[in-house]
């Protein structure tokens, strides 16, 4: 594949790539400008104008606000606050910790035993998209999935100012 274009990335993001196209992308060299193109695609698709610094999950990006704040933001526009604080602490949660709750998702007994594990569904308070599911024992602290080192990433790896 000679070039992985923004159109190809657009199709990949929407899950519209053919298998042949996806295989070609997988086999191709991992090009150095992928991040720049990807961020452009995401920025063009965004319904808001804040500058995307880093996507951290489906629907969630760290963005730079006009006042310099760097916050986690959902595609719908809801903001979760400073990216250095776990965004889940500002989300809504539904905890499945009963047999009936688990059996809604899995034919019995193909789901976890709630005496051993619970499923925590984290929703965006703005659009109620399910952003994360934790499968953890009861009492497990909320997991902080990913804390990027933005400064090192931009300054040392990309050679750019944030």
């Amino acid at each position: 594949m000679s070039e992985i274009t923004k159109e190809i990335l657009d199709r990949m993001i929407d899950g519209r790539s053919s298998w042949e196209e996806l295989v070609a992308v997988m086999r191709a060299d991992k090009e150095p400008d992928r991040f720049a193109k990807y961020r452009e695609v995401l920025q063009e698709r965004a319904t808001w104008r804040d500058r995307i610094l880093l996507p951290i999950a489906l629907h969630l990006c760290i963005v730079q606000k006009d006042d310099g704040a760097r916050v986690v933001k959902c595609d719908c526009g809801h903001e979760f606050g400073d990216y250095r604080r776990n965004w889940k602490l500002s989300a809504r949660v539904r905890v499945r910790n009963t047999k009936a709750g688990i059996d809604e998702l899995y034919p019995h007994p193909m789901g976890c035993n709630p005496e051993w594990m619970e499923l925590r569904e984290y929703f965006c308070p703005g659009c109620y998209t399910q952003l994360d599911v934790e499968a953890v024992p009861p009492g497990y602290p909320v997991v902080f999935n990913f804390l990027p080192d933005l400064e090192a990433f931009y300054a040392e790896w990309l050679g750019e100012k944030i």
Partner: protein
Amino acid sequence: MDMKSKPPVGWNGTTLKEMLAASERRFADTGHYQGLAELPIADRKPLLFERLHLKLRGALVSAREVARNISASPIVKELGELCFTVFTPEGDSVTLSTGIIVHVHTMSDVVKFMIRNDFEDDPGFAPGDIFCNNDVLAGNVHNCDIHTIIPFFWEGELVSWIAGVTHVPDVGARTPGSSPVGPMSTYDQGLTIPPQKIGENDRVFRAFRDMYKRTSRTPLLLELDEKTRLAGCVMIRQAIENLIREEGIDTYKQFMREAIEQGRRSFIRRVKRMLVPGRYRVPSFCDVPWENERGHLPQAAVNTLMNAPLEFTVNSDGTMKTTLDGASAWGFHTMNCSPSALQGGMWVMMCQSLADAESINDGAYFAMDQHFPRGSWTNPDNPEAGTAHAWHFLWSGLNGLFRFLSHGYHARGFIEEVVAGYGTTTNILYGSGLNMFGEPFAATNMEMTGAGLGARGCRDGLDCSYAMWNPESDIGDIETSWELWEPMLYLGRTVKPNTGGAGKYRGGNALESVRLVWKSQQAVFQHVGHGMVHVNCGLFGGYPSNTGYRRSAHDTDAFELIAKQAPLPTNDHDPEHSQVETMIKGRHIVDDNALTLPEPYSDGDLYVSVIQGGPGLGDPLEREPAAVVKDLAEGHLLPRFAERLYGVIAVQGPDGAWHVDVQATAARRAALRRARAEESVPVAQWLATETPRVQNGELPPWVRRMYQESIRLSTDWGGEFKAFWGIADGSAVYEPAAKK
């Protein structure tokens, strides 16, 4: 008295111990393997470098493909559970064949163990010598993986080590099978072969062969596996001899070192290209629910919940730190791991995903710093800790590695490489007794390699085709791999619906099989899976895959049905409306106890084996309704879950075809979003109600014990746990006085 009497066999008159120490010193001083700041062959003569690399790698792959035909074990011959590799004199891997490449690192540890423990003096290293190991304390995952290692000499110097490994079907433990589940310690988990010399002049000592054959339930298969390993090593030795004659010994020596340094640099380049510096937390869990299991000694008859708080830090220089700090304690079972096993497990996963496929060797290992806390299941502080089924914790505990990488890939836009995780290769069927020929048998059915891969960044996961420990998974033919060895007929082997986790992209589904016990005597079989917890986790809003379950039927009318030529169940399909239970009369057992001891089975009994699917990715309400309908048509999804999981209202026409009711689907999805709003609370509110419950330890005893163990073994993890819940130091609930 100085015991050093043999002349050194290292390069330029040095000992191997001196070579290893010098290598480690150069790396510590310079950050480059062997201090190689420049790579004269790789950089200035790239064609020569490629020629050397491809000839060596070709020899290894060729040796594997030829040697596997010596084996009679379906595990090696059909499934390809073997691997060969070449090491430097210090024990660092230069290149490898395909296969169970986890052992490229474990066998590296064995070579270094022999060097550090003065094997150069006793028993010494000479041309034609053969060494063997299966001991995890030296370097291994579990004792059914047996290593054969030979030194390669050129003009009096030990120039390379050549090593091969096969996964044997039975190790003569208290319970049958290759990875026995039932023993409680090292001392009843079967064959242990610490590193030792087992032959000279390319011939294995008869006493060694007699020893292991007397130990295993499958002596002939072990003997042929041993010949497989040695034959492969000798073929590789001949290939290296030819290579040195063609290219020169100095070129070969320099190439080995450059290949590893290039592998290290390549790995770091890939990290910087595809990931983001920062901290990634990807915990996993695993269950051993044995409190009510009769047949265990008291210390083993407990419910154990394993904590694997896996954390990665990608440093700004592209190196990586991994820690399992906070892991729970080792226990009296065979699922404990050695650091060598975990390092090998991480390495095999990195090689499938992040590492450059053409530069796979120990270079990646040199770019990673790893911590496995002493006393935990990741690094037991007691040699009694059993490890024969270390994979049970290993494939659970490392599941998060793909979630870590996928967070990085997703952030950088390499979404074609994103994968939510994998289904662990369970259920495993183990068994023993007398088979259909009236002969003793030991069953290790490895069709569990038909697990599901997790959903990917822009596509569903692979169905029925993934084993994290062997990138070339193969479920084996029913007739030649399994029915030839096990007194059980296959009534069916099909895709199991709903095993893959739900999501915008669903996890790959897995297999299930229904087996009919046939012409057996004194047969016992067991289920080995994860019934209580999901050992993987969805990504970005996807759900984990299925848990395992036990289903069997005893004292059945199966043979009467066969005599009447009546239909038989080919699968269990929907466990809430079981085909087995509907079609077969008898005593049915079904529960979430997926990790049993061997249980007696008689002719006509049925055994159901349900493998694990892969986890899902993304919000299930974002899944294309057409994809849901396709799943219904192809049997990947039970119809009632189309609405529950995906909010898709599908209607089946008179021709049996499924169609989406578009309007009803939109309405149902809107209703499910409203339900999320009504049934969820702000996390702060949930934590306010949860905190006193956790503070007071109002948790099942095995959950509370897991936290106690993690807190005891890690000040950092314990400190974070206590701070999160506002628990004081010295809590009587979580830090009871240490018991001896």
